[in-house]
């Protein structure tokens, strides 16, 4: 046994253990990327560096052995800076999107590519579930949304964008409309929502699903707000809106119509409810006496959690901003539900945080063919037949198969993304030159290889060597230009006879991923 000090904590460890193992014994976690349990260390990514107190030297914890009397620090400001720098260097050459651009463009951050893939496979109910994770009113928005997602679609410059909005509408229209199960309440706390437009309906739906009893108070005879009273029947069939409201009622939301909210009622709500959400569509003169900070047109809110100047009072939708975009209002309804849940649980009220997202921007024309490997080459489908303006199941499946899988197959498992988030890294810091061209190698029935996402840690090279693949992977070139590839340009299905899934599972990023890799904990069978 030897004595060592880690973060001022003295411990005894066996001789020969690495600093990483020693730190773990002492209860300190050190981030790693290129470390792999069944292989000897390789010392590539350098995010595990720690500081030797006596010499001031920075040493990689995965490879350095603990020696008697060594005194190390595993986390401080300088080390964070070092790790952040290492991660930013890796990000500067990372050619890949964590999230598909359509999803990023969607104000509700709906998992569009996943919906597309499910529709393409005929799994319509699952597709609707994906939609409803983020959009409470898919039938409505499938008809009236201006679809910013389609503007961002990477397929757009190739031929035409995927018809996302109609696919969402299809998912709603196709599914049998059964009332959703009433949500079980998890708290005594209650929320009141003023207004039943897209923002109010959406907030109520997600609050109720979180187990919070929610009541909507609305001045009109029927619920729906601007969706009902500002849109023509051509723009939106009211039956669709009615169906959506029925579902929201079905999960347990209480609706109170014909309610005139005065300063006094507002005050009463603040007493009777644990949270009040203003979703009135605007800031009218009648609200002047409510005590809300405003600029005469809108209520001023904290942009991350929608809190107003009044305690427990939130404002969403057009009440806090002038742009009239139903999807944005609906998105805020979903986000405020998260903020309220956080408040009720005594957590910091940060609202819905977007994860770190690596983006590559536009595809270059020479890269189109790489992305098209993931999609059908069909032209954009247009609805015909009995369903006016809506897809048939066959059309929908065809259209959905045009989606190019721009999203990463390992959005949650990717260590680079996780660490980028942890150390607040920026992808842009070292972006001085044009990115490397993008490639997708889809030659294997089980895995996909995207060299642009590789951090050159060589785990896959060493695994294919260990398991004695005849070809396997090797390092091609050296230095910045080094790439992992198959010797003699052999095809991937020949190179990886035994280890394909293993290398995909062991790859710390999305460079090697199983074809069936499923995000968001959904079942692999779904794809």
């Amino acid at each position, binding site marked *: 046994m030897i004595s060592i000090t880690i973060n001022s904590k003295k411990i005894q460890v066996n001789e020969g253990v690495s600093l990483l193992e020693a730190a773990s014994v002492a209860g300190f976690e050190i981030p790693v990327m290129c470390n792999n349990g069944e292989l000897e*260390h*390789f*010392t*590539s*990514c*350098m*995010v595990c*560096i720690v500081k030797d107190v006596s010499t001031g*030297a*920075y*040493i*990689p914890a995965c*490879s*350095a*052995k603990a020696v008697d009397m060594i005194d190390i620090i595993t986390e401080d400001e300088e080390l964070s*800076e*070092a790790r952040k*720098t*290492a991660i930013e*260097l*890796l990000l*500067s*050459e990372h050619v890949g999107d964590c999230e598909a651009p359509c999803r990023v463009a969607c104000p509700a951050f709906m998992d569009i590519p996943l919906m597309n893939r499910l529709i393409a496979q005929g799994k319509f109910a699952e597709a609707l579930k994906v939609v409803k994770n983020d959009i409470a009113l898919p039938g409505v928005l499938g008809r009236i949304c201006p679809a910013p997602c389609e503007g961002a679609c990477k397929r757009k410059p190739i031929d035409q964008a995927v018809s996302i909005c109609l696919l969402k509408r299809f998912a709603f229209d196709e599914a049998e409309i059964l009332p959703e199960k009433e949500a079980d309440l998890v708290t005594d706390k209650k929320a009141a929502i003023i207004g039943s437009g897209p923002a109010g309906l959406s907030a109520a739906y997600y609050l109720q699903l979180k187990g919070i009893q929610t009541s909507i108070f609305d001045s009109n005879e029927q619920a729906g707000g601007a969706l009902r009273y500002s849109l023509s029947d051509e723009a939106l069939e009211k039956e669709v809106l009615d169906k959506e409201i029925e579902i929201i009622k079905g999960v347990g939301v209480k609706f109170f119509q014909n309610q005139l909210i005065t300063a006094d009622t507002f005050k009463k709500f603040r007493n009777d409810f644990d949270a009040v959400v203003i979703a009135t569509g605007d800031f009218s003169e009648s609200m002047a006496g409510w005590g809300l900070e405003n600029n005469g047109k809108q209520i001023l809110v904290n942009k991350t959690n929608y809190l107003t100047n009044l305690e427990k009072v939130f404002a969403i939708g057009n009440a806090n901003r002038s742009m009239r975009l139903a999807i944005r209002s609906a998105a805020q309804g979903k986000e405020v539900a998260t903020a309220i849940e956080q408040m009720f649980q005594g957590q910091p009220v940060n609202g819905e945080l977007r994860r770190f997202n690596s983006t590559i921007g536009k595809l270059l024309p020479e890269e189109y063919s790489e992305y098209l490997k993931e999609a059908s080459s069909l032209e954009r489908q247009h609805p015909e037949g009995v369903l006016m303006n809506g897809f048939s199941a066959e059309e929908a499946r065809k259209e959905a198969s045009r989606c190019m899988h721009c999203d990463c197959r390992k959005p949650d498992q990717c260590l680079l993304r996780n660490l980028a988030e942890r150390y607040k890294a920026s992808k842009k*810091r*070292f972006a*001085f*030159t044009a990115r490397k061209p993008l490639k997708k190698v889809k030659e294997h029935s089980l895995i996909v290889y995207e060299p642009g996402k590789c*951090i*050159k840690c060589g785990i896959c*090279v060493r695994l*294919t*060597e260990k398991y004695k*693949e*005849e*070809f*396997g*992977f*090797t*390092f*091609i*070139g*050296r*230095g*910045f*230009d*080094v790439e992992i590839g198959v*010797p*003699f340009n*052999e095809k991937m299905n020949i190179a990886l006879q035994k280890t394909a899934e293993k290398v995909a599972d062991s790859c710390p990023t999305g460079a090697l991923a199983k074809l069936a890799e499923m995000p968001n904990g959904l079942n692999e069978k779904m794809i």
Partner: protein
Amino acid sequence: MQKEIDHIIQQKGSGKEAVIPILQAIQQQYNYLPEEALKYVCANTSITAAEIVGVARFYSQFRFEPAGKHIVKVCTGTACHVKGAGLVFDALKRNLNIPDGKNTDSERNFTLEKVSCLGCCTLAPAVQIDTVTYGHVTPSSTKSILDDFKNRINGKKNRKSKSSKLTAFQGEIRIGLGSCCVASGSDEIRQAVEENLTKDDLNVTIKHVGCVGMCHQVPIVEVIPKGKPAQLYAKVKPSDIQYIVEKHFRPTGFIGRLKNKFEHLVENIQHEERTEGVERYSIDIREKHVQAFLGKQIPIATEHRGVINPLDLEEYIANGGFEGLKKALLLKPEEVIDEVKASGIKGRGGGGFPTGKKWEAVANQTSSQKYLICNGDEGDPGAFMDRMLLESYPYRTIEGMLIAAWATGASKGLFYIRAEYPLAVIRIKEALKICNEKGIVGNNIMGSGFSFEITVKEGAGAFVCGEETAMIASVEGKRGFPSLRPPYPAVKGLWGYPTLINNTETFAQIPYILSRGYKQFAAFGTESSKGTKVFALAGKINRGGLIEVPIGISIRHIVEEIGGGVQSGRKLKAVQIGGPSGGCIPHFLADIPIDFDSLRQAGAMMGSGGLVVLDDTDCMVDIARYFLSFTQKESCGKCTFCRVGTKRMLDIMNNICEGQATENDLDELEKLAEWTKKGSLCGLGKTAPNPVLSTLRYFREEYVAHINGKCPAGKCKPLITYSVNDNCIGCTICAQECPVGAIPFLPHKKHQIDITLCTKCDICKQLCPEDAIIIS
């Protein structure tokens, strides 16, 4: 093909460690690596596809496409870089009609490559076509060089020479055979001498000697007529030989002399055209500057320089060779180590780790096997010390290794020699063969009962393999990836056994310490850094070459006294010392002593000993970028900070040189440099930022000037424009020679340069007889 490959495998072995020698042999055979051949190797050895491809793709020596009939190598070492190698490369590319993005012309006649250093720094810029080296090349002389080369291959005379009959001994002629000498044509000199001696039936011994160190004067011929004082001739041409021979070895009549003088005059006129590329002065003999150059030096590693034949074992022994080894073998190993420790010698490879301590660490290991490696993988693109030592003093280096082996208990040793040094490899192999025959290497060395075998490994073009752990990986037949130390090679080295790795120069100094005693060695140098150090002095200096000086000597002393001052009377700006790992010492610190500590404090390092003199026409930002692009290219790609960090630093440097950077980028550059230094795995990455950091420290104002769109030295192409001033006499030379037609042909009128066409190749400026082309 199978037959050839079978033969290669038979020769080189079929184990994994044979992969590099096999690849080298295949390339030797086919001039590239045919995929079919590599597949055949995999099928018939224990080498896997991943291994052979991984290794082949790591080392820059290997080619994957057939090359042209002739290979044109443009040296881009430091000295060549500062003397315009980049422009020479561009000009050659143009003259050889090589399309963009390719390195071979469409007829596959010529392949144009950049090499990191040919080790002929004093001939900078140097270009090698196959085996012919041209020195002092300019963009405008590239055409005539190619013509010269084509003439050579078309009209090559088969000059056979026979050795002269031995009659009465009349004297000796010594011809330098270091690479610089050979590159500058000493082989032709030798032929000319032989021809003249044969013709006149003279009994004069031709003696091949190693590097004299006066590389700025090559080829050098020394004539020692029996019983008369020696005469040294510098920059000799083959046509001079007749005159030299006649002068010393037979009386000449008046007419003969006159004829000779006339021919001489004609030659001088001809050589204004510099058809051979190598500029030569008229022969002038021993002068004061030779004294100045050699007089202040203390030869230890380079003892008997220019006197002994590198491969003449008896001569080496007659001059005290192997005395150190004999003495060591009479001592106990620990006593040898004590002697080395007491001498205070530190590793000459750059790091400066005490040699005795390193030996002790290996000696202290109990192991069935210990290895010893002589590091001759000199990668600094401005240094040629190891090459000179290996070529000129092979026995001394071998002796040092034998002493080390005795002291540490190693039984197997090897030379790891850089791929670009074919002559050094030949010399060492030859010397080892002779030593084996004479019982100096091998079993029972000199009857002592001590045995030690030595082999030679050739590098394959990877700077990082100068790093101990990467070198070991390379010897084991792997990609040259370094690994974390500890464990140090002294504990766990080659094949997992304790391994001593010392630099060539270190080994070359060891015999002196043993034969003369540690005190005599320690008498030179400073308190903390003992002995002497060999430097390759090059760049903007009057007398460049290989020098050996006591540690602690000042930069000023080297530049002004030994080197004879800055070339063309310009002002000293800085001295780049330590190559890509070192830094630039500014002129105002020229009085600091050259030792390990002072250099480190000044932001440089001893490095292996490259010393490149820079004058006021050199752009320090460009110099820093040059070194950074070198290390960036040589990064093995294993760890993030070096692989991506050096690349991003280079991106910023490129932006600065193009006037595209901001003050903010300078801060970012400094931060990134710091982390690359602290966070990289091995010495390459840890020192790669030094050239940038040292120039930022001493020449920050030049960086700022670039940010403001100006390159004060007029070197950074995107920031300069060429124009014509009123000195122009309208001679049209520039108009005729401009490769892109940017100067209209207007005789007797002031010329003008169309800057939209100008490629800034510098040819007009170099050719203008009136200094009328200016850069602004």
